[in-house]
């Protein structure tokens, strides 16, 4: 791995960061920074070589994550992250590709790419930072904004129901799907670790705080602490959710692992898993 400037003494994860780009541009208390740390702890635990991996971000706050990491990085085409990822995986199937997408990147402009990547079981890790709004552009309503929430463009509260990204991923065919939140760093790291280790389309949705926009518009408070608490109060672990009534689960996000299974991954116009390629002598 290429490391330009090692910290004299400091957080050990800094060795994975492009330190000349720090401090990163995320607002004070933004969850994106916590996602970076969780991702790096997962990389460290799996002993992966970040220098051989590709990180992809579209456009948005979340999408800037790979820009700060010592890995090959593609950044700047809103919603088309999975199209890029598909191209890379077809050309170099052994390359580990990780996509960092905001909820808008993933489910709004990139929604179609998302369902088809899941259907094809593209061997890519898709980390979605759900901050409930289009953050970078100023906090507009997005497909994952909770119903009733005030945003920049819904001053009287959003009247649209949000997407459930994890449910969508499961029904579309993703083979690892999990949801977690930034205030549970251990779980965040563990799910990202499983996702990175998984062969197939692995999706980790992370409920994250955008105190600057979602916090100020929806909660009337720019305090990261208040938004973190709000997110905690709106999540229910899967095990507990199973015992709850539908009314009790109204407006709550279930956290946990929804599916972990295996099926052939996308290798091109003909879907062919590694074992079948071997059988035909093409491996």
């Amino acid at each position, binding site marked *: 791995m290429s490391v330009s400037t090692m910290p004299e*003494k*400091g*957080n*050990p*994860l*800094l060795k994975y*960061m492009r330190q000349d780009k*720090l*401090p*990163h541009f*995320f*607002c*004070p*208390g*933004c*969850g*994106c*920074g*916590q996602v*970076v*740390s969780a991702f790096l702890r997962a990389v460290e635990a799996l002993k992966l070589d970040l220098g051989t991996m590709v990180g992809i971000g579209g456009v948005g706050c979340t999408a800037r994550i790979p820009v700060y990491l010592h890995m090959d990085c593609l950044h700047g085409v809103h919603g088309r992250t999975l199209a890029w990822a598909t191209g890379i995986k077809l050309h170099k199937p052994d390359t580990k590709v990780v996509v960092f997408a905001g909820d808008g990147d993933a489910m709004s402009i990139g929604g179609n790419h998302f369902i088809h990547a899941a259907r094809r079981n593209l061997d890519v890790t898709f980390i979605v930072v759900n901050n409930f709004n289009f953050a970078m552009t100023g906090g507009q309503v997005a497909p994952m904004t909770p119903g009733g929430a005030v945003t920049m463009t819904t001053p009287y509260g959003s009247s649209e129901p949000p997407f459930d990204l994890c449910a969508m991923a499961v029904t579309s065919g993703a083979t690892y799907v999990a949801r977690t939140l930034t*205030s549970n*760093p*251990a779980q965040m790291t563990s799910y990202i670790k499983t996702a990175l280790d998984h062969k197939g389309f692995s999706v980790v949705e992370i409920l994250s705080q955008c105190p600057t926009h979602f916090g100020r518009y929806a909660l009337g408070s720019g*305090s*990261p*602490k208040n938004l*973190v608490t709000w997110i905690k109060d709106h999540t229910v672990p899967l095990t507990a959710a199973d015992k709850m009534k539908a009314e009790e689960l109204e407006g709550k996000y279930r956290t946990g692992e929804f599916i972990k299974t295996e099926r052939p991954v996308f290798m091109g116009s003909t879907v062919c898993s590694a074992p079948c390629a071997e059988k035909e002598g093409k491996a």
Partner: protein
Amino acid sequence: MAVHVNKRLCKGCGLCMTVCPKNVYELSDEVNQKGFAVISAVRASDCIKCKRCEINCPDMALWIEDDETSSKEESAR
């Protein structure tokens, strides 16, 4: 104790203050090169090395050194 605060990276969001069980941190008046008022480990000697601050810090500004007893705050500028 070894609480390392990198004031160049800190943005003073205060999340460390909310997760620390020993109330080690306080927001200081010191402002860094980016104009953020940064935190200070005013009660560093109370640290029990649970590392919740280090793990929760969005800016990688904190580090709890395992085998070290002094505490250090990098300069803000």
